[in-house]
C-alpha cells in the first residue's frame, strides 16, 4: 500500500461538513478511519495523517481546531512523548496527550495502585487496586485507536530513562517523591537532546516548569532540600491541584510537539490555588 493509495482512499471516504464555527470542511469519521486502517492494513494514525495532509480533518480533532492547525495536528500524530510515572500527574497528562492526538506515548511506572490513589488518578477504579499503574495507563491509551502506547511496569534509573524512553521520544514527566515531570537523568535534570516538562504538587501548591536541552533546571532546586516529611506527605495531593498541574504540563508538551516555541522555557509557573495567585519565575 503506497502513500498515494492511502491518500486516494481517505479522499474517497471523506465527507463534507462544517466546523463548530460554521466553516466548511472535509471530514473523516472515527468509523471511517477504523475501516480504512483495516482495509489498507496500516495503523489508524497513518490514515489520520494522510487525511490531515489532504486538508481532511478526522472528526475526533474537529474541536481541536483552531487551537491547532491541520499541519500542527499532523505533527502531533507523528510525535512521541515519554512519560516517567503514570500516577496522578502522569495519568492526567496521558489523558490529555491521548485526546490531543499525540501519536505515540511511551510510559513507565513501577508502582501499583492502592486505595490512597483513588482521590486523584484518572485511570483508577477501585477494582484496579494492586494492579500496575502503567498497565491501566496502557488501557487508557488503547481506548484511543490512533495512539501507539507502550508501557513498562518498572522503575527506571536515569540510564533507563535515556535508553528506553527519552532517546525515542519527546517529553515526559517525573515520579512522585522526586522531581516530577518528563524524563531526565538524576531525577528530573535536563536530558541532552530532549526538552523536559515537569510538574509537582503539594496540597494546593502547583509547580510546572520546562527545561530545554542543555539548559539549567529549576526542578532540582524546587524539589530538593529540607528535612523530615516532604510537603506532599504533609499536605497530600488533592485532585484539583493534580489535574491543574497535569493540564498545564499537557499544554506545554502539546505546544512543543506541535512545533511551537515553549511558553515556559527556563521558567517555572508557581500556582497557589488557595489564593489563586500565580508567579512565573525565570531561572538562569
Amino acid at each position, binding site marked *: 500500500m503506497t502513500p498515494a493509495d492511502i491518500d486516494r482512499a481517505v479522499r474517497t471516504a471523506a465527507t463534507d461538513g462544517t466546523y463548530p464555527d460554521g466553516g466548511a470542511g472535509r471530514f473523516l469519521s472515527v468509523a471511517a478511519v477504523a475501516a480504512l486502517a483495516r482495509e489498507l492494513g496500516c495503523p489508524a494514525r497513518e490514515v489520520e495523517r494522510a487525511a490531515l495532509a489532504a486538508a481532511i480533518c478526522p472528526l475526533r480533532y474537529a474541536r481541536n481546531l483552531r487551537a491547532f492547525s491541520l499541519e500542527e495536528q499532523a505533527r502531533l500524530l507523528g510525535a512521541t512523548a515519554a512519560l516517567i510515572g503514570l500516577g496522578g500527574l502522569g495519568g492526567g497528562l496521558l489523558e490529555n496527550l491521548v485526546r490531543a492526538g499525540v501519536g505515540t506515548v511511551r510510559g513507565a511506572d513501577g508502582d501499583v495502585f492502592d486505595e490512597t490513589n483513588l482521590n486523584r488518578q484518572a485511570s483508577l477504579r477501585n477494582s484496579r487496586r494492586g494492579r500496575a499503574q502503567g498497565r491501566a495507563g496502557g488501557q487508557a491509551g488503547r481506548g484511543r485507536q490512533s495512539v501507539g502506547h507502550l508501557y513498562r511496569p518498572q522503575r527506571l534509573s536515569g540510564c533507563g530513562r535515556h535508553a528506553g524512553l527519552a532517546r525515542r521520544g519527546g517529553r515526559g514527566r517525573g515520579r*512522585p*517523591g522526586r522531581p516530577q515531570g518528563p524524563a531526565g537523568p538524576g531525577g528530573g535534570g535536563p536530558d541532552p537532546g530532549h526538552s523536559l516538562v515537569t510538574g509537582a504538587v503539594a496540597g494546593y501548591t502547583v509547580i510546572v516548569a520546562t527545561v530545554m536541552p542543555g539548559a539549567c533546571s529549576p526542578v532540582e532546586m*524546587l524539589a530538593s532540600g529540607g528535612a523530615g516529611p516532604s510537603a506532599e506527605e504533609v499536605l497530600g495531593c488533592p485532585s484539583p491541584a493534580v489535574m491543574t498541574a497535569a493540564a498545564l504540563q499537557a499544554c506545554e508538551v502539546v505546544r512543543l510537539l506541535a512545533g511551537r516555541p515553549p511558553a515556559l522555557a527556563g521558567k517555572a509557573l508557581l500556582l497557589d490555588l488557595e489564593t489563586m495567585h500565580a508567579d512565573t519565575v525565570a531561572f538562569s
Partner: protein
Amino acid sequence: MNVTVRCLATLAGKAPPDGRLALPSGATAGDAADALGLPEEAVAVILQNGAPADRDTRLSPDDTLSFIPPISGG
C-alpha cells in the same frame, strides 16, 4: 519598612495574617524568614518580586517575598 509575604504549601501557617511584615531598613530575605520563624532547611526557594533570591538578598520597601518548601508530589 514593610514587605508583602507569601508562604506556600507547608509554610502557609507561618505567613502573617495580613500578609505584611515590618522589617528594619536594610533587612535581608533571611531576616524576613527568621522573623517568620521559617527554618532555613524548610525553604527550598525564595522569590523576591517573582525572581529567584536567597537569604542574603537585600530587601526594599514594598517588596513581595515568597517562601516555597521542597515540592515533588503528584
